[in-house]
């Protein structure tokens, strides 16, 4: 899985590309957390438009990041998940907890 960062105001945008599973999640998690600490940002935007596969490891990763962002009073947004990924987000109730920009 490939991860690229950009900034939109006080939000860190994470463009994730490829397959998000247990194997890829640990490195992605580490990269996002490091970047989020280093940048002068408050909010986190996860762009999932190029994520081609995600299982419950992705749910864990998203909820884990949400906890960190909420802790500092920031907000989290999920951007453009593909239909298959929307299904798993809906199932895990992430949709009720995190704003989704389809």
């Amino acid at each position, binding site marked *: 899985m490939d991860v690229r960062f950009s900034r939109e105001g006080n939000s860190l945008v994470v463009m994730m590309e490829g397959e998000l*599973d247990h*194997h890829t999640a640990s490195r992605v998690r580490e990269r996002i957390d490091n970047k989020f600490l280093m940048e002068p940002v408050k909010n986190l935007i996860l762009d999932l438009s190029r994520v081609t*596969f995600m*299982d*419950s490891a992705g*749910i*864990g990763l998203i909820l884990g990041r949400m906890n960190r962002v909420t802790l500092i009073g920031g907000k989290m947004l999920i951007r453009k998940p593909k239909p298959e990924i929307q299904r798993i987000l809906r*199932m895990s109730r992430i949709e009720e907890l995190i704003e989704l920009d389809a």
Partner: protein
Amino acid sequence: MQPINKMRTEFLSKSANESFARVVAASFAAQADPSIEVVADIRTAVSEAVTNAIIHGYGEEEGTVVLTCVLYPDFVEITVEDFGKGIEDVEKAKTPLFTTRPDLERSGMGFTVMETFMDSLEIESRVGQGTRIRMTKELKSR
């Protein structure tokens, strides 16, 4: 019922094999010409079962995971087996959000995903001996 086709593969409990297992099961099912949604569901369910075998069944140890796919006229049966530590309370393990590894940022949704994405799910487990997950998915042709 007579199976049309069958395959069995075994691999080490390394996380790199999670994507391998998904691809193998999806390609096997593809011979029945299922819809993209059905293939996506199979990929996700296999990923959950194999990941569980790797992180919960074996953990720090290394062991063998066996993936078996059997094709019947209108469904596929997928079995994922490990010979690791087993599950003490299967009913509890199936509860949504239940996880024994919150430290690993697991969400406790794996069995719920398998149950939702597949048509049937059976869990057979013995503490100290291992776990066998059997799932089926109907293959409606396009």
